[in-house]
């Protein structure tokens, strides 16, 4: 049994290699879409002359044919530097990984909350279908999906930070409080709230339809007719089967999670990867931008891979191969 899963995992990994190569080609292509190429930023700098640019071009190998450049770049990706930043010349991967913990704290908390709250809302909505709760939850989810995230964030700052003064309006720690978990928690509340709202809306909608699917199955009717309590049927029979498809949703939601984190980090000055991306955008730091695009895409590929393998592990009905 586990051997099956193992070989499934192996083939699933092999199949995601073309995807990774595709991601890298598109990522590389976008960088070269820039008018004047990735060095265009230097033409705006008066202290750098045309001959300087030519020299940098040769030094960075940008005078080479495009496929040679791609291979050079791919090698930099594989050897772990991911290129060097324009300002400061630091390895791009190092700069990104530095911001990883802040983003992971924010995304992890939000995702965990969204999964808990969303599954609960979806489950209740499915059991009490067409009830007032179901109606409110469905409409509420639609409303949450219609909010511009950044606007919701601004409103949260206005209410909780400016008007009520309960929570800080941005940042990760107060000055001199670095590493204090209580201070981190206070700063985490608002950005998490904003990010969770977006995720919970999608999550509860999927959870509702998944639970609806399952509780209409024959084996649920059988369990009920045996005289089992609603609770026993729900948690003993329905829950596991309804939650399995949601594992796949986790993978699918990763891009949304990154996009949401970018917005939340920008509004709340959260020192994570999204913030790094916007800063790099403003400074036209193409190596960082490309690194970020690649990093998020690879994260999504791996996340989906893990979700698929997890489903294969917990659901014996999944056809492997």
């Amino acid at each position: 049994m586990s051997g099956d899963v193992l070989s499934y995992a192996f083939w699933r990994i092999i199949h995601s290699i073309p995807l990774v190569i595709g991601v890298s080609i598109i990522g590389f292509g976008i960088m070269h879409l820039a008018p004047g190429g990735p060095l265009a930023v230097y033409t705006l700098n008066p202290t750098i002359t045309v001959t300087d640019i030519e020299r940098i071009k040769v030094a960075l190998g940008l005078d080479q044919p495009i496929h040679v450049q791609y291979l050079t770049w791919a090698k930099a990706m594989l050897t772990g530097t991911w290129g060097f930043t324009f300002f400061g010349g630091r390895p791009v991967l190092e700069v990104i990984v530095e911001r990883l913990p802040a983003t992971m704290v924010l995304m992890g908390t939000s995702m965990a909350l969204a999964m808990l709250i969303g599954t609960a809302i979806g489950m209740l909505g499915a059991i009490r279908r067409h009830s007032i709760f179901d109606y409110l939850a469905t409409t509420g989810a639609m409303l949450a999906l219609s909010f511009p995230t950044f606007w919701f964030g601004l409103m949260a700052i206005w209410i909780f930070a400016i008007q009520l003064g309960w929570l800080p309006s941005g940042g990760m720690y107060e000055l001199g409080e670095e590493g204090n978990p209580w201070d981190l928690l206070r700063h985490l509340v608002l950005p998490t709230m904003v990010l969770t709202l977006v995720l919970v809306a999608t999550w509860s909608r999927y959870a509702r339809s998944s639970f609806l699917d399952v509780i209409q199955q024959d084996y649920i009717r059988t369990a009920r007719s045996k005289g089992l309590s609603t609770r026993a049927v729900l948690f003993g029979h329905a829950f596991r089967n309804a939650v399995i498809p949601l594992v796949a949703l986790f993978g699918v939601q990763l891009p949304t999670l990154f996009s949401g984190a970018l917005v939340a980090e920008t509004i709340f000055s959260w020192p994570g990867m999204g913030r790094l991306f916007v800063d790099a955008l403003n400074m036209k730091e193409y190596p960082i931008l490309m690194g970020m695009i690649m990093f998020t895409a690879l994260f999504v590929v791996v996340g989906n891979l893990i979700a698929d393998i997890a489903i294969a592990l917990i659901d014996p009905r999944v056809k492997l191969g």
Partner: protein
Amino acid sequence: MTDIPASTSVSAAAPSRSYGQMIVRRFMSHRMAVAGAVLVVLLCSSALFAQFVAPHDPTTIDTAKRFLPPLASWTYPLGTDDLGRDTLSRLLYGGQVSLMVGIVAMLTTMLTGTLVGLAAGYYGGIVDNLLMRFVDTLLCFPQVFLLLVVAAFVPPTILSISLIIGLTSWMEVSRIVRAQVSTLKEMDFVQASRGFGASNWRIMLVELLPNIAAPVLVAATLKVATAVLMESYISFLGYGVQPPMASWGNMLTNAQGYFDTVPFLAILPGILITFTVMGFNFLGDGLRDAVDARLKIDP
């Protein structure tokens, strides 16, 4: 007079109304969908007639009238911003920009998505494989990241922003179209058409396309909603519609600077974005329920 009741017709299940009437009736019974439709019509017409409705020019600066409060005077019903520009006029013209971007982006999305989906579903084999792997690859990139990187390279105009949004969001549409087409193409009427010697183009455009119109229309409505949201994101981050031209997104960016003193400048554009997105979302959801083939028998 010679009205024959539905129950006496040949098949008891045969509807007495046309498919179109049935859809309209089902749509009208969906309260949120009707509310969405009303909202969309209201917002679209106010944007369409902004030139006639707006009391002021949206870009006229009058520093003597900075930060007038809303509901205080008839000449400036919603007050003024940091440069003394009329908020109501800017909201109306901003709506024009946001909806224009939403609709042009939607058209781009639908055109690209439908073409790719049609080709993949109809031809199958290697074409399908290549196109769908390309779609898979693009779906790995978080849309806001992709959008911002491309937007940073391209001079921002309404058209370029619309195209960028459209070209980064067609992937789901192509999957929907492909799924529909690959089942439809095996059906008898398509085979018959092929038997009569119809060309591939003719089969795709005349036989297949009308049959997938319903899900495409639903997707189109929902795509306007996402495109309006995306425009507000990139305008808010400074890479969308550029000042002095008003868009709801850049009005919010501007308002952020005076947030603690004049919050209404930030509240109003946000409410309008929410209403627009919600209107199109409810409309699309209602349409989906109304045209869903699986629900053909009235509940």
